[in-house]
């Protein structure tokens, strides 16, 4: 077969490393609207649910029973189910309908009804819905911090940096399960070094996770996975009741929990029962709500590649975020596991949560290199920090993080690593050496760390889990070793555990260690002028990326001593001989000394004059005062020139060859890409101008096309032009100049 060079190139693109599959409802490979999804229905008799979504009570599975008895608000169910789905869709997209009005009725909607509402909504309407239905007013973000070495100093350093960058929660996990207590300890100490009040968790098996929480090493857990079919639930070795009990057990120890669901898990486990992913997710979410979880992480999470392989997958992921918000659940909205090879695609997907805002825009932004991510991610990594900060700055959208300087990062990383070193030393855990501290402070990832003998670490971890030491021992160790500020932060986390305010929906701690939740920071969005918008100090912080320079900094390098070799003689007169007139911008060789490409103005003059001389004629030089415009300057030169040929040259280096009979904005040759112009180019410009003056056949000067130049230099271009324009004197005629130079 013939091969198109374009299709050949397209085949190499990142987007074509993905897998795409056509829907297959029978296997659950359909994101929404399976032909086997039920129609919404409810029947209530004597205060008991007799039917949900076409299934009679006798045929209920465990999930139906749980939802009927614990999730649905039967006082509003009949009213809620009678309202057409399209009306809900319109209310969700309508800024004039407040959150509470919708939430009251949604409490009575069955899974099929919830799914049916989404059928009427496009992504823009769903984004409007998410902006309004999100339960916490202020959006936030969660980070993932892991490394394949499971190195405590590197974990602490990365956790400290993540905390300083503004993440409200930090989650770690393990490669080797026995490391769980030490990984949890390292991110606890690291985060509280970076900022007091960052919530932390270690994602491990449920019983182990609860033990870590009981030791005070973690303050939240989101490992409580639920599934949309009974069989999948049982395959996951749980029931809605066991998960709900676990939720209460965590809460009894003052630990925040959120459940985990997300599209695709049932199909992946072969138990989708021909239902669409979104319908099954709606069932999950009602189980989550019925269990009394304050929130959920969904957005497909680790299964994300599956919906993304199907048509409408990214839309469905937004839909599940929206459904959770509608049900009054805190949403950690996914964007965690690697979802795409393509930067375009992953960023486009992110916008669906980033722009409306979510309680946690990521349920794990990978604040580490991709290679160190033990969660199968990340979709955005440490390598993308600057990109993400710029997205916030571009759109004035609060993505939950802030820019930091390299010096700040190094200082906090070193402090976090030294704090965990001190804790290990005081608690007689295997030594962390100063060499490891130095490496962790400077490291990007595990590859930058020295080898560490993990056998003693694992033995110490086992002993720590078996023993009585808990976070009080950690606080004492920090107190004794001069880290009293870190100790105080961990102690305050302990006091907050006693107050239990952060068990309320969507709770985080703000920069002042004050709890911020859907109770005291309830989302009040009802359109323009309401809801959360970053302003004041927060907006200033978002703008202040270290890469941003002061405007003066762009012009300063181009200012120098006025050229002593360039002397003004008097008003310029029209010439009569075969000459070229080189007309300069008002700041050339005066207020400005170099071109945008860094060429000295006298060197540029020498090059052009050499070029003219090479054809055996001379050039006169004039300075134009009435305009800073390149065409206008060149046109003046042409009209003063005895040959009718002039060269216009702006201070930033932009040049034009003009002819007196052309329209002012026309030209013989234009050289707009001043950064690409070399002295050789300027010499060729001089030579060509001379050839035009002599009436010789002339090949236009070839210049390199660099389409990135404008992108890189537009600010400098604008500011240099402004500086030149400052020198304009509208009434002053062109002046004749003498340049002290002899051709070689």
């Amino acid at each position, binding site marked *: 077969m013939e091969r198109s060079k374009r299709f050949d190139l397209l085949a190499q693109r990142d987007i074509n490393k993905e897998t795409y599959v056509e829907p297959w409802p029978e296997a659950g490979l359909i994101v929404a609207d399976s032909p086997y999804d039920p129609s919404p229905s409810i029947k209530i008799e004597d205060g008991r649910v007799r039917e949900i979504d076409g299934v009679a009570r006798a045929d209920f599975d*465990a999930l139906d*029973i749980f939802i009927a*008895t*614990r999730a649905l*608000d039967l006082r509003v169910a009949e009213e809620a189910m009678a309202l057409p789905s399209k009306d809900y869709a319109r209310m969700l997209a309508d800024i004039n309908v407040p959150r*509470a009005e919708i*939430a009251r009725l949604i409490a009575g909607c069955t899974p099929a009804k919830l799914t049916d509402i989404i059928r009427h909504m496009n992504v823009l309407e769903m984004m409007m819905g998410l902006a309004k239905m999100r339960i916490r007013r202020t959006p936030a973000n969660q980070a993932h911090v892991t490394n394949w070495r499971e190195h405590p100093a590197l974990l602490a350093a990365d956790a400290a940096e993540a905390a300083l960058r503004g993440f409200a929660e930090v989650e770690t996990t393990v490669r080797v399960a026995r490391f769980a207590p030490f990984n949890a300890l390292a991110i606890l100490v690291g985060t509280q070094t970076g900022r007091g009040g960052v919530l932390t968790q270690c994602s491990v098996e449920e*019983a182990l996770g*609860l*033990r870590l929480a*009981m*030791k*005070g090493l973690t303050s939240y857990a989101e490992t409580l996975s639920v599934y949309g079919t*009974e069989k999948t639930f*049982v395959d996951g070795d*749980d*029931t809605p*009741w*066991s998960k*709900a*009990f676990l*939720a*209460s*057990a*965590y*809460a*009894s*120890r*003052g630990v925040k929990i959120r459940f985990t669901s997300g599209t695709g898990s049932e199909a992946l486990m072969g138990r989708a029962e021909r239902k669409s992913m979104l319908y099954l997710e709606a069932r999950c979410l009602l189980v989550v*709500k*019925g*269990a*009394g*979880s*304050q929130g959920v992480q969904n957005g497909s999470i680790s299964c994300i590649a599956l919906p993304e392989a199907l048509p409408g997958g990214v839309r469905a992921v937004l839909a599940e975020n929206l459904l959770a918000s509608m049900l*009054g659940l805190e949403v950690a909205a996914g964007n965690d596991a690697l979802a795409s090879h393509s930067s375009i695609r992953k960023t486009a997907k992110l916008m669906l949560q980033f722009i409306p805002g979510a309680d946690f825009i990521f349920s794990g932004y990978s604040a580490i290199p991709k290679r160190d991510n033990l969660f199968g991610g990340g979709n955005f990594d440490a390598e993308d920090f600057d990109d993400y900060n710029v997205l916030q700055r571009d759109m004035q959208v609060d993505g939950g993080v802030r820019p930091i300087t390299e010096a700040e990062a190094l200082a906090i990383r070193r402090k976090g690593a030294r704090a965990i070193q001190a804790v290990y030393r005081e608690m007689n855990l295997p030594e962390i050496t100063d060499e490891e501290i130095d490496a962790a402070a400077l490291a990007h990832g595990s590859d930058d760390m020295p080898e560490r003998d993990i056998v003693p670490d694992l033995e110490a971890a086992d002993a720590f889990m078996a023993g009585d030491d*808990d*976070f*009080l021992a950690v606080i*004492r160790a920090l*107190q004794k070793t001069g880290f*009293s500020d870190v*100790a*105080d932060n961990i*102690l305050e986390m*302990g*006091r907050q*555990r*006693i*107050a*239990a*305010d952060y*068990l*309320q*929906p969507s709770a985080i701690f703000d920069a002042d260690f*004050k*709890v911020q939740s*859907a*109770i*005291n920071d309830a989302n009040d969005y009802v359109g323009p002028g309401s809801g959360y918008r970053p302003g004041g100090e927060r907006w200033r912080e978002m703008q202040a990326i270290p890469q941003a320079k002061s405007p003066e900094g762009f012009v300063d390098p181009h200012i120098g001593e006025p050229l002593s070799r360039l002397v003004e003689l008097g008003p310029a007169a029209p010439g009569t001989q075969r000459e070229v007139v080189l007309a300069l911008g008002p700041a050339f060789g005066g207020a400005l000394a170099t071109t945008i490409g860094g060429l000295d103005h006298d060197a540029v003059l020498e090059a052009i004059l050499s070029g003219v001389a090479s054809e055996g004629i001379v050039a006169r030089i004039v300075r134009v005062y009435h305009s800073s415009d390149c065409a206008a300057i060149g046109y003046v030169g042409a009209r003063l020139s005895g040959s009718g040929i002039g060269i216009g040259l702006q201070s930033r280096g932009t040049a034009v060859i003009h002819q007196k009979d052309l329209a002012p904005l026309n030209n013989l040759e234009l050289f707009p890409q001043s950064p690409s112009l070399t002295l050789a180019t300027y010499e060729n410009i001089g030579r060509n101008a001379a050839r035009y003056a002599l009436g010789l056949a002339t090949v236009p000067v070839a210049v390199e096309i660099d389409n990135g130049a404008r992108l890189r230099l537009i600010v400098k271009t604008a500011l240099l032009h402004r500086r030149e324009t400052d020198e304009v004197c509208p009434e002053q005629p062109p002046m004749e100049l003498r340049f002290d130079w002899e051709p070689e």
Partner: protein
Amino acid sequence: MAETKSEYPLRDSEADQLRTHSGLPLGDITAEAIAAGALRGDDLRTHADTLRRQAAIARDSGYPQLAANLLRAAELTDVPNEELLKIYELLRPERASYGELVRLADYLEETYGARENAAFIKDAAEVYRERGLLRR
């Protein structure tokens, strides 16, 4: 006490009334006390009454299921760690017989006054029997 109208957050509004699970006032939880080794893990756990106050706040703010969870949690504050882990294990699929679950519920109610949890576990026992989730 659960019916007392509480102002959220309790950390600010009721700092002088909050007590730890062991009965200490929150004000006793100081850096000095920890440095002196005067506190145990139990002193940094939440009290059942605090969780009941939080449950009332959740209920009044439109989160009734969370409120129910927090009421169950309040009852579990007195249940030792190892027992909690055992109860969770028994509630997983096919771990317990119907009778074992009912006895567990009665034990929790009699030993810890855990009425809500007892009702919750009995409810699970009924559903597990109906759906074949009891030990085979």
